[in-house]
């Protein structure tokens, strides 16, 4: 932890991103004011439970949000260009070239009627001016880089002929065939068995080192996050609730939700009669509580929590969206300040860019 956050240029900087879905039942604010930064060559783990908006954040960065969804506001700056303002054809050059994405279920992301080789070669020739032959050679080379035995033969096979772990390798080979600066991996190992997961994680680490690419790793598995990430952002109900470097988040979590998550998972080698629980369920996105979104499940909930807490720095580089004082004690304002007081405090405390 010798580096301080912000001292390096960010490769990707998302500011105040809002992606909303106008559904028949009402407006779902799937992503509501998310800010992230990913440093070049580093891995950012984005953690959260289903429905917290982590995948929608990734799709927004890739500009793959479909109706009724819409990026309502915010900025996404990548390598100095604002992705939101980019015309679609220029975005297409970024997508799959500078930023690649892999998904959870490789079977649904691969085209069943093309061979694996063809699909990788397509990505290669889309982004570089090479002959068909050279593109196919590159595809075979990529397959061997991701550890697929007999890559020449595998390149001629269709996705259904491969196992789940192999398909995920094909996805990774495709994503990396254009040497992206950023890889967005959305639950890349969730559908895999643990011995295969270990293979894929090791592979991602080796390729990260070799190519110097940054990774945005989206997962609900705190083990995978601890294993892979330099930085961690925790999301809850469409907002970032805590962010810092990985060591700080795991050792000195500030937000009650992060602390609850860390306490509730069973760990190997740790005997406990009972697991800590987070009471209740994730709020309905159509009917979010006023103020802090976590207050109904929070063991520390107080009257002040009826006002939306600011995302503020608790220690340098460590932000948390909670009214509790930075040391975890009672809030400085007292437990029940007036709404106006709380609002004014929130304004001054908020860090615009974690």
């Amino acid at each position, binding site marked *: 932890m010798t580096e301080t956050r912000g001292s390096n240029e960010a490769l990707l900087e998302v500011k105040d991103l809002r992606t909303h879905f106008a559904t028949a039942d009402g407006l779902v604010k799937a992503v509501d004011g998310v800010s992230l930064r990913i440093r070049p060559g580093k891995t950012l783990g984005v953690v959260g439970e289903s429905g917290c908006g982590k995948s929608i954040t990734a799709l927004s960065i890739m500009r793959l949000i479909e109706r009724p969804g819409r990026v309502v506001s915010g900025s996404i700056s990548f390598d100095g260009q604002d992705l939101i303002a980019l015309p679609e054809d220029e975005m297409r050059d970024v997508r799959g070239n500078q930023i690649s994405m892999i998904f959870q279920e490789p079977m649904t992301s691969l085209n069943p009627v093309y061979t694996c080789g063809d699909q990788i070669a397509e990505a290669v020739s889309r982004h570089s001016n090479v002959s068909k032959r050279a593109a196919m050679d590159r595809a075979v080379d990529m397959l061997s880089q991701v*550890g697929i035995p007999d890559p020449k033969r595998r390149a001629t096979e269709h996705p259904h002929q491969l196992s789940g772990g192999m398909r995920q390798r094909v996805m990774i080979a495709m994503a990396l065939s254009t040497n992206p600066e950023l890889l967005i991996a959305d639950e890349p190992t969730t559908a895999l068995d643990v011995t295969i997961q270990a293979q894929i*994680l090791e592979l991602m680490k080796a390729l990260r080192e070799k190519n110097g690419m940054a990774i945005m790793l989206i997962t609900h598995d705190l083990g995978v996050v601890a294993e892979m990430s330099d930085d961690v952002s925790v999301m809850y109900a469409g907002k970032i609730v805590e962010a810092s470097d990985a060591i700080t988040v795991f050792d000195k979590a500030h937000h009650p939700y992060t602390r609850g*998550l860390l306490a509730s998972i069973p760990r190997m080698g740790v005997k406990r009669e009972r697991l800590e629980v987070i009471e209740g369920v994730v709020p309905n996105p159509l009917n979010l509580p006023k103020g802090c979104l976590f207050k109904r499940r929070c063991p520390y909930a107080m009257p002040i929590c009826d006002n939306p807490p600011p995302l503020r720095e608790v220690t340098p580089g460590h932000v948390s969206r909670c009214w509790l004082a930075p040391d975890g004690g009672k809030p400085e304002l007292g437990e029940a300040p007036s709404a106006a007081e709380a609002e004014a405090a929130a304004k001054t405390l908020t860090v615009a860019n974690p």
Partner: protein
Amino acid sequence: MTDIRTPNTLTTPPPPGAAGIAEADTLVRVDNLVKYFDIRGGLLGVSTIGAVKAVDGVSFSVKRGEALGLVGESGCGKTTLGKVILRLLPATSGRVEMDGQVLFDIPAKGEKPQRQSVYAGKEAMKKVRQNMQVVFQDPYASLNPRMSVGELVGEGPLVHGMTDKKEREALVRDMLSRVDLNQTHIHRYPHEFSGGQRQRIGIARALALHPDFIVCDEPVSALDVSIQSQVLNLLNDLQAEMGLTYLFIAHNLAVVEHISDRVGVMYLGKLVELADVDDIYARPSHPYTVALLSAVPEPDPHRRKKRIILKGDIPSPANPPSGCRFHTRCWLREQLGRPERCTTEEPQLRSLGHGQETACHFSEEISATAVENAVASSAPIPTAAV
């Protein structure tokens, strides 16, 4: 304690202590259970051209009041094993006994002396079924969307003769409160509940007949992290309250460690290790268990460890490797210079003392140094390029 369990014939009850525990303690006894799924093929797709050996000769006992965890990767046969024990799937051969009642006893092909298959009759089976229930993985798929919570939970008691409506409703309400669901939700339908609540309905449904034995098949793997711990605590509480016996099937090793008293590890249709939970996690005695434990990423960035990376995928259960089924991926065999015994002789579950059983010829060779060497030789990219 014998190394190889001989299948018991009906006339001679299993010898006491056959699985290392006293007879009186045993609630469920599984003996040499085999389940093959035929692969159809040929011109009309009616001839049998092979078989998927989902469960291939598994024996163990579950003691009354214990939670026996069963871990393994997808396709290892753990779910099939659970279903065959409950007779939700017909066995190919083997014997299962529940609380002294033989559910079935089917001789293996070519077994000598020849004998008839024995099945518990319809009436007897109905009685046994009251005593054994199952909680499924997917709370979205396992509840009939057209039945209300009251009907779902009350269905078992109705089938088993509790015809009085008032009595049944009282029972359902009692069950709902036991699983921490609101009693007033008795008339609601599954879609009105969250995943965690639905799993509670599934548990209430299993409990409604006051069974002794519950097979929990991946009961928390479809749930979010914060909900998992709620359901695990509930299962623990219910076990203590109602004296339940669990066969807890899961792939998450940390979850299994938390809930189980003993743990069995399956690989390709075989039980490769069986031991007390503390022993198996502290001193795994099968190279597959060692690799499995090593592969789990721990939620602690200070403990990023090097792991044993197994080569390749699980082989197909339709055509399992000869000898030891794990030999194609085994790191210990590599270290020992690929002894021939691994490919020619199928290891049987044998006792290492203190209740730990392993199906490896070379368990004694597993040491801290051996594991370190295996970790060191795990290449970052598992398979050689071109």
